[in-house]
């Protein structure tokens, strides 16, 4: 994102009569400058261990969002990794809002190309595995509030098989994306970690 130009730099030697006013204006612009810098370079983590998921509600304005996740358990669980983006109007929960399809594979055989769930994009689908890891990438399409998304995920230590998911498509928000939820309703992740970075 473009960083807003700061007000005129104060100069005590060059413009002593306006120095105080220029200094005040310059310093008052610093919070926005910091916010925009963070918006261009930010990275945060979230720990949702022992929870059904996590709601991230403090996203700055971004063009690119990269979310990495890990869900791990000593025993097989049915955590399904539902990803729901949202705006100031709330999370996107209607099927028709997602122009997304996924594909998951069991060992080397592609077993389905399926629609997403009823209320979000399912990043990981198969239940009963011990560990899942993946990456979700969100790209804003120009000045619109249409976002392209792409997911690669796997659960390499499944008791049943080695499987993976690919998912891609777009979704539309009424205004800019400010939040997202990653969860599996009613299923707790003994270990759940998420890192997200934006540009």
């Amino acid at each position, binding site marked *: 994102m473009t960083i807003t130009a700061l007000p005129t730099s104060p100069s005590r030697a060059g413009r002593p009569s306006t120095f105080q006013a220029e200094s005040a204006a310059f310093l008052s612009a610093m919070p926005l400058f910091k916010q925009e810098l963070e918006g*261009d370079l930010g990275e945060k983590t979230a720990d949702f261990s022992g929870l059904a998921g996590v709601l991230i509600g403090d996203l700055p304005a971004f063009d690119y969002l990269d979310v990495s996740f890990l869900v791990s358990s000593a025993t097989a669980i049915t955590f399904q990794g539902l990803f729901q983006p949202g705006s100031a109007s709330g999370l996107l929960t209607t099927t028709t809002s997602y122009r997304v399809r996924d594909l998951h594979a069991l060992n080397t055989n592609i077993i389905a190309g399926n629609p997403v769930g009823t209320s979000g994009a399912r990043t990981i689908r198969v239940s009963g595995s011990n560990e899942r890891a993946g990456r979700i990438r969100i790209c804003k399409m120009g000045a619109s509030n249409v976002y392209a998304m792409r997911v690669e995920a796997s659960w390499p230590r499944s008791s049943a098989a080695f499987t993976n998911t690919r*998912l891609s498509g777009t979704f539309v928000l009424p205004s800019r994306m400010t939040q997202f939820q990653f969860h599996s309703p009613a299923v707790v992740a003994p270990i759940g970690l998420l890192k997200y970075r934006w*540009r």
Partner: protein
Amino acid sequence: MPITPLPPVPDRSNPGTFANTADAFFAAFPTLIAELNANPSYVSLPRVDLTGVSAVDFTGLPDSVYEMAVLLDEVLPTGAEQLLVQVSTSSGLITTGYTSRPIHVTAGTAAATSTTTTGANLFGASGSKLSGVMMLRQQDNKCFIECVGALIGSPDYTVITGCVVNIPSPVTAIRVTRLGASNFVSGFASMGILK
């Protein structure tokens, strides 16, 4: 382009130089912001309407590109024509030599394959709209392209392709076009570039 270091931080324990040091420090900020804006770590190109056109070119790609993403939103080619992505270098548009192998899948069945060599292509299906992200990376005079997309219609498909093409020099532009003779019916394309 590297960011110019800021001048020395003003220090009130040196009152004789404080005012001039402070002036120089604050005066450096416009340059800092100009350099930051000239070197974004991610570049988002405008979203382009494909309706009624045969191709759109995304030009002026920055140097030192790490990864490029072609973003597709409800792209509808005519009939069952396919989407095609081609790369340009300083030597011109490359229209041959792509080893593309797309398939589309529904309910566990790989519906079709292709051996198109004129670009990285994704299957269409009559009346189905394609949305998804196509990723491109370049290394060792090759451009690697792969895509997973959603082809939504009746039935729905998940489409996937992998492709490599030799490039004589870094990619300078990306063309989104179609494998066929007709213009796009509708849809949008955009690009994101990670440096």
